[in-house]
């Protein structure tokens, strides 16, 4: 008891200070119109911030279904569009691959993603059972994402452009010159395009798209825009820095492209090389 009183005697000034300070503060915010308004508006700002914070979560749940529906619808529309790419010349009978829908789209959700390693990878929630195969191209609504490099029955792993092992055949949209796009392992927003000859007219801001060579991507899918130009050490080629159009930090739904004729094309190409 005496100990407690002694303690109180030594520390009462803390208590007294708090009581007086709280009293002054209460007076301040209750009797002064300006401070009162600021005080109240701070309260509103805090609760407002809290509400918008919680609503991002609730909205994520509410819009999850909507997102999925939209992704499915996009894929359906793209498939319809891909089927329409035949030449509309009824008087001229023809039969070739232009008539067919060469590419088929399906969608998948990104369930895991990395942007800060040399060997970045993206995991999708669809696998063999949903028609995913090794070597299919992956794009988002903003542009090319990468290529599927591994599949299990329900998941697939994509090597994105921002994986140092990845190379994608790309070209400059308006000149048509093509080169090889690779990533130097630094910035997830930038890749390098090499193999474009020094005499090609290029300016900053030019669009870089897929070349359409190979069977993975259709021609002309957006990859990014030219950010910086440099000549390589020997002066024969450009080293072009490309601003990637896909934001790898924000990926949620992607589309997987399968080339229906890929097998036939590869087979023909294979026959050709074995013949040589």
């Amino acid at each position, binding site marked *: 008891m005496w100990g407690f009183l002694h303690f109180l005697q030594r520390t009462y000034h803390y208590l*007294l200070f708090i009581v007086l*300070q709280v009293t*002054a*503060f209460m*007076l301040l*915010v209750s009797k002064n119109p300006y*401070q009162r308004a600021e005080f109240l508006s701070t309260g509103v700002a805090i609760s407002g911030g809290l509400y918008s914070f919680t609503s991002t979560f609730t909205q994520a749940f509410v819009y999850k279904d909507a997102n999925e529906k939209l992704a499915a619808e996009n894929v359906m529309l793209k498939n319809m569009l891909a089927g329409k790419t035949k030449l509309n010349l009824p008087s001229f009978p023809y039969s070739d691959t232009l008539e067919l829908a060469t590419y088929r789209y399906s969608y998948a959700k990104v369930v895991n993603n990395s942007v800060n390693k040399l060997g970045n990878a993206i995991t999708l929630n669809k696998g063999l059972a949903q028609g995913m195969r090794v070597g299919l191209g992956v794009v988002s609504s903003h542009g090319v994402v990468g290529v599927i490099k591994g599949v299990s029955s329900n998941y697939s792993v994509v090597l994105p452009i921002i994986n140092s092992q990845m190379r994608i055949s790309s070209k400059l949209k308006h000149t048509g010159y093509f080169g090889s796009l690779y990533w130097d392992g630094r910035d997830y927003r930038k890749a390098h395009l090499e193999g474009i000859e020094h005499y090609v007219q290029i300016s900053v801001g030019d669009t870089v798209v897929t070349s359409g060579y190979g069977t993975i991507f259709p021609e002309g899918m957006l990859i990014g825009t030219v950010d910086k130009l440099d000549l390589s050490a020997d002066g024969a080629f450009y080293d072009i820095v490309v601003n990637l159009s896909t934001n790898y930090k924000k990926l949620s739904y992607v589309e997987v492209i399968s080339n229906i004729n890929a097998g036939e094309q590869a087979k023909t190409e294979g026959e050709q090389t074995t013949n040589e």
Partner: protein
Amino acid sequence: MVVLFIGLQVFILNNIQIAGFVNPYLYIYLILCLPVNAPKWLVLSLGFGVGTAIDYLTATPGLHASATVFIAFVRLILLPMLLPLSRTEDENWPTVKYFGWSWFLRYIVIFTLLHHTLLFMLEAFSFKLFWFTAIKIVASTIFTLLLLVFTQRIQYSSEDRM
């Protein structure tokens, strides 16, 4: 003595208050120059009382009371650390007379800055006008410091003559 001082300071202060943009607050002299061994409850209550008196005269309830109680509290904690170890029992007032000008200047700079910072922050009550508030704090602090030095000077020289 202390009661007399309150009245005097409040009247001086009330007049200086009218000055406008830059407001020196000389009244903190009352708290700063309390005896070193003054009871804690007295220091705190006096801080609150003086602050409230100013608030009453300037129609800003709680504003000066809050800032002054704060420096009164900090003074309780900080003053024993600031005082020179060689202090004797007679040197019971934190004034130039006992501790010299350089010590006194350091002492009043710390507490004036603390008091004015809290006061103007509470007056603005938001960080919207942060730089304007900062300028006010610095300008008023300089003004108050000048007045504090002046006051101390008068007291010092009058005591000298006695």
